[in-house]
């Protein structure tokens, strides 16, 4: 059974919809700049220039919620636009988020600590599951609503779970992806780990120091053939491969040999029935931390040999949007398939000494791209790979 992609939507610091993001990618225009909030102002982040009310107005949202919810609604609405709800099509929503409504709770909890007016009703927006319920409400989806929370691989895992729900016949159509807003909690967290670059991040560069955080959401719509016959949707891509494996090495660091990443890429290729040499582009996890990029490069070489396919990390545009990254990068993979274009890895100068791999450094047009592999790795050694393929 084939799994088709029939819609995609995105919000990030490089665009409030797919078209804006595509133009920014082609123009090599990063969204990472000095932060706008009191907790982000000291840092370079991929922040979206709209307040919560701005998001509600811009995207005509009917449901209120945390910023994580609102970003999710905006992207999921674009993805689901033109798809009609029908009793004949069992439709679900599976969203990934790492911190859910933390943007709301960290403010309220601060009031609690300062013994200022403490509005406990605000915490209703806190649970990660609630962010997904609010997005589902906005879309009118109620057959199946689930949330995956595996840190930075959440959206990739939500996409994978969606595909498996379709394959098993439990759903006919599913909106999948992820969302995360910037919070003081995550900025402080990554700083405490000392993998935060105060300058622009440089994925796969020898001088890389760490990541820039970002916020956003990315969703795609998956449908079966049967669902498309009823809905009349036309496919823009196929989801052909997926896998998740554990690195089982360290709670936050990746293993030097990239064991988990090798497993997830290998198994995703097996699910897709593809050989490594059939992959035309790799959208890497590429956070720009010293540890991830070395481990991922090593894993890429173990799977693809000394001359891997063109690869890049688009986190140099968006920042690391955590649980949303797999969703946003799935949309980027689809743009690559649809337009035959390779997107560059910004800020790259010097290859990593140990591996010598050089990412795509400029926009490359006019390529024949049939299969794109996208990696997402999370805390806890949670390694996920999805493969998106052109419609035959």
């Amino acid at each position: 059974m084939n799994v088709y992609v029939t819609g995609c939507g995105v919000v990030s610091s490089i665009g409030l919809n797919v078209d804006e993001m595509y133009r920014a990618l082609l123009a090599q225009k990063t969204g990472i700049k000095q932060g706008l909030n009191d907790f982000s102002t000291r840092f370079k982040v991929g922040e979206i220039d709209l307040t919560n009310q701005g998001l509600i107005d811009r995207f005509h949202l009917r449901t209120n919620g945390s910023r994580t919810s609102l970003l999710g609604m905006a992207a999921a609405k674009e993805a689901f636009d033109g798809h009609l709800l029908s009793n004949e099509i069992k439709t679900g929503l599976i969203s990934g988020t790492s911190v859910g409504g933390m943007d709301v709770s960290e403010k309220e909890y601060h009031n609690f600590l300062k013994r200022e007016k403490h509005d406990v009703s605000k915490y209703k927006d806190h649970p990660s599951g609630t962010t997904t319920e609010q997005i589902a409400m906005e879309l009118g989806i109620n057959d199946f609503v689930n949330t995956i929370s595996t840190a930075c691989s959440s959206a990739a895992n939500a996409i994978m779970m969606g595909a498996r729900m379709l394959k098993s016949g439990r759903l006919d159509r599913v909106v999948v992806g992820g969302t995360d807003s910037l919070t003081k909690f995550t900025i402080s967290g990554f700083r405490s780990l000392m993998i935060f670059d105060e300058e622009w991040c440089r994925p796969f560069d020898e001088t890389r120091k760490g990541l820039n955080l970002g916020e956003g959401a990315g969703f795609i719509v998956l449908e079966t053939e049967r669902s498309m016959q009823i809905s009349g949707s036309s496919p823009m891509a196929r989801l052909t491969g997926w896998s998740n494996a554990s690195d089982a090495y360290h709670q936050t660091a990746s293993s030097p040999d990239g064991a988990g990443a090798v497993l997830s890429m290998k198994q995703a290729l097996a699910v897709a029935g593809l050989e490594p040499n059939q992959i035309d582009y790799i959208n890497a996890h590429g956070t720009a931390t010293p540890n991830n990029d070395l481990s991922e490069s090593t894993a890429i070489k173990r799977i693809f040999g000394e001359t891997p396919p063109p690869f890049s990390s688009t986190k140099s545009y968006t920042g690391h949007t955590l649980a949303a990254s797999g969703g946003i990068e799935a949309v980027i993979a689809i743009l690559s398939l649809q337009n035959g274009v390779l997107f560059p890895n910004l800020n790259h100068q010097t290859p990593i000494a140990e591996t010598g791999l050089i990412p795509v450094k400029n926009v490359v047009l006019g390529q024949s791209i049939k299969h794109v592999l996208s990696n997402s790795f999370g805390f806890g050694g949670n390694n996920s790979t999805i493969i998106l393929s052109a419609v035959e």
Partner: protein
Amino acid sequence: MKYFIKTAASITHQNSFDQENLWKNLTPLSEEHSLQAPDYKVYISPASLRRLSPVLRMGIALAKQCQARIKEEIDAISVGTALGCLADTEKFLVNILTATSDTLSPTAFIQSTHNTIAGQISLELGNHSYNMTHTQNALSFEMALIDAMLCYGDGKQATLVGAADEAIEFLKILQPFVIQDQFPLTSGATLFVLGEKEHTGVCFVDCALMLQNENMEDIIFRFLQKNQLSDHDIDCAFYAGIKTTLNFRESIEFLQYTGLYYSASAFATHMAHDWLIKQGKKYALVINNVCGNQVGLTLLARE
């Protein structure tokens, strides 16, 4: 399809750990109760133990016990948690909101993400398999179970599946506006291993999640009908949130045993598993309506 249970293990406010049958010790929670934790030193090194919160300790100890009880290596892990690692989340929040210097310890942050429970299990077991974390409020366990059923369908021989949640003092402040206060707040974790070989004779038959936009009786009736059953066939219904007027042979409100944590239906399912064995009965149904707007239905059968 039948999804057989190879083993089940729970740490709760009941005397549930390492019991051959839970029903030997189960009583409704009284005024005085606390988490009945095992001696964690048996399962976790002292160095790790010091930095691990209750929810992580429970998850690791249960996973190790489950792995020790089966021959196969666990080949998929699917964990549900409603609120995740609350103790470390709160600890890191306090750290960042009261910090006077720019350097913070990352430990609480590292252990605050929801998937630390499943991630620590993979680390402690040295397990490289599929590793998933579902969080859907009161239906988190059921979501993890559906994923485990998909794994079983894909041919996995030993899927570790369950749920874990921990209570922190702060949750009391949210009562009764955000969290109901009919039952005491508790912590608990339950893990099962699913697989077709060397099982207990009890299996999951179906698990479904419904938005409660119609009459509860109709929802349950249709679910049973889909499984060629009627309410009369259910030997015992373990329910929470709503009492139905359907004609089950017996019914037990489970929150009085589990206390309130949002993945308590996992322990209710363990209760149902052991009940079927002890009573020698055929069908049990777990009706989880802990969150008013949604209901999870889990059907178990003894072969």
